[in-house]
């Protein structure tokens, strides 16, 4: 793929755990009119180090420049970018549906089974289906369930691990010394 062509990239940012940092990082994208497709923050494999996973649709030339701006922030330890082919990722979707449909529309149970989704909870008013996978898989399930009526639907940000090794631990080791 040419460096000028836009594609989805997952940006992994290892940072100190700091209150204002989300603001600082999102401002870098905002200033350049780059829409954040999804954003997730969580602890990382290293104690005391947070990890942002941000998905953006950009070309490679610009993502490199953005990485420079992100890494320039004092409390950012290291940032990486990967195309979606270079990572193993998951997105979660939640569907809230009226309980009566579970019994009236037998098809729904088959859809859930075939989609490898699972029912998280059932009560007399509603039940909740959870599906993890690629965005397309969750959208497909949405399309199948939506004719029956979905009370609520939400999709999480992308979380990912890379196929290749991330040298972040050894890097932090060297910073600490």
């Amino acid at each position, binding site marked *: 793929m040419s460096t000028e062509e836009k594609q989805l990239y997952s940006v992994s940012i290892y940072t100190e755990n700091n209150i*204002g940092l989300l603001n600082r990082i999102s401002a870098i994208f905002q200033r350049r009119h780059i829409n954040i497709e999804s954003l997730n923050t969580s602890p990382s494999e290293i104690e005391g180090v947070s990890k942002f996973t941000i998905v953006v649709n950009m070309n490679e030339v610009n993502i490199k420049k953005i990485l*420079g*701006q992100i890494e320039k922030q*004092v*409390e950012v330890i290291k940032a990486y970018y990967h195309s979606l082919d270079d990572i193993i990722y998951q997105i979660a979707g939640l569907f809230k549906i009226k309980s009566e449909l579970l019994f009236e529309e037998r098809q729904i149970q088959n859809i859930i089974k075939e989609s490898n989704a699972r029912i998280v909870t059932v009560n007399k008013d509603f039940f909740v289906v959870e599906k993890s996978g690629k965005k397309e898989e969750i959208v497909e399930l949405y399309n199948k369930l939506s004719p029956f009526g979905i009370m609520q639907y939400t999709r999480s940000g992308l979380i990912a691990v890379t196929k290749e090794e991330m040298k972040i631990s050894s890097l*932090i080791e060297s*910073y600490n010394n």
Partner: protein
Amino acid sequence: MDTQTMKSQEKSTKTTERISGSEAIVRCLIEEGVDILYGYPGGAIMPVYDELYKYQDKIHHVLTRHEQGATHSAQGYARISGRVGVAIATSGPGATNLITGIADAQIDSTPMVCITGQVPSHLLGSDAFQETDIVGISTPVTKWNCQVTRAEDIPEALAKAFYIAKSGRPGPVLIDITKDAQFNEFDFSYEKCTHVRSYIPVPETDVSKVEEAAKLINAAKKPLIVWGQGIILGEAEEQLKAVVEKAGIPAAWTILGASAIPTSHPLNVGMVGMHGNYAPNVLTNECDVLIAIGMRFDDRVTGSLNTYAKQAKVIHFEIDPAEIDKNVKTDVAVLGNSKISLDLLLPLLEQNSHNEWHQKFKDLYEIEYEKVIKNDLYPTKEGITMAEVLKEINIQSEGKAAIVSDVGQHQMIACRYANFNVTKSNITSGGLGTMGFGLPAAIGAKMAAPDREVVSISGDGGYQMTIQELGTIFQQKAAVKVVVLNNDFLGMVRQWQQLFFDKRYASTEMVNPNFVAIAEGYYIKARKVTKREDLAEAVAEMMQSKEAYFLEVCVEKEDNVFPMIPSGASVSDIRLE
């Protein structure tokens, strides 16, 4: 932060003593060697002012007339001395008034620490009186910022602030401190910050990159150096001069790089950029190797990037990795501190003189002289030109004065015509183009370097944006020489209206007050010049004055600054008229 706090406390061998957060703030400043700070009191910062009162024999607080003035004074202080400038203000409007100066310091890489008071922590988020989210507001324009809500966190936050502001590529840092953190007592001890684990201020210079650069430079037939403020911030003036002289390379400067090599140096070929000199702009598109050192290829320097130095191999010496390939694609990037990199480069360079190439610069200078410079310096028309005033200042100061300019036509003229024979002599708002910068920045510069002659040069527009700082000059007895080049217009905007908007002078004409009376109202000696025959003598009187002096020079109303690269045009399409 917490793990590091613990670590630093373990390491600290100093004995502690129980003091308030506000006293700790002042003690931290003294520990960091701050002798002067600029600010304005108010509710949420009053405990700190109470301590400043007690410590006034150790640290001098300058009451500016507006918080914006405090930041610009701190910037002027930093730019002339290389030390960290400090500004202090209260919460709410006090804090928001700092923002222009902070943004200016950010884009011009000026080391500055701003301290703001904040409402007590239990009121945060309640829309309390004079509460504003200054950490949120200042985030995009600070190198780093943080809010402190506990007295015991103050020393580490301030230590980190000074370290981050000054190290690597410098910049502004803001520390917001709640009023309860100022009042509460804790066991104080101070340790300077020397390391933040997530922050690499100076990337290590890769010797192999220096060797690649040297190879390109040695093979070049038409090399051109463009240096920026990175030389001054890195204190690499001597190194640059040595490189330029050994390899015989013509060297041009960006506006913020001015004065790193004296104007009079034969290899100094002038300023690049929109109103820079003809030769270095035109020949940027003819050189075979472009050596950029401590500069960032701002759009005012490059004009259209599609036609900028496309024929040249580009070498970029730079401390900030984010600048590499940001605007101009480089062939060799040498990361690191300019002083270290140039020291490594020098022995690898071959002696050269590039005489033919130099002749091209001289030839183009002759054209610029005939078409522009001669008419600016020795006009035949009646009205005084701005350049004539600079010429007189050069004569009186022998090119040793620090010139603090504002923003607009006079700024371009000052940078073009001032003789800079001492480094750190051009203090101006480059990246942000902040009108109103000049007067307060000159106050800060004069106070930081009382032995230097400091001349503030403003236009009638920018001058009135921070004119109230005359009060600071008077109160501090700061011997600043204040020159206003008055053309009764917002000259640069008017020039653009003339050239690009069919002379529709929308809101650029200024009906001005009696500037001399205003200066005299502040008890500052003042004079107005309207005729050429009085100019030399008036400038001489000003420069000889031991105290502050105000000089208004009424200049030609509708003069334009040339050469000029129209915005979006190529550097080689620079216009002489």
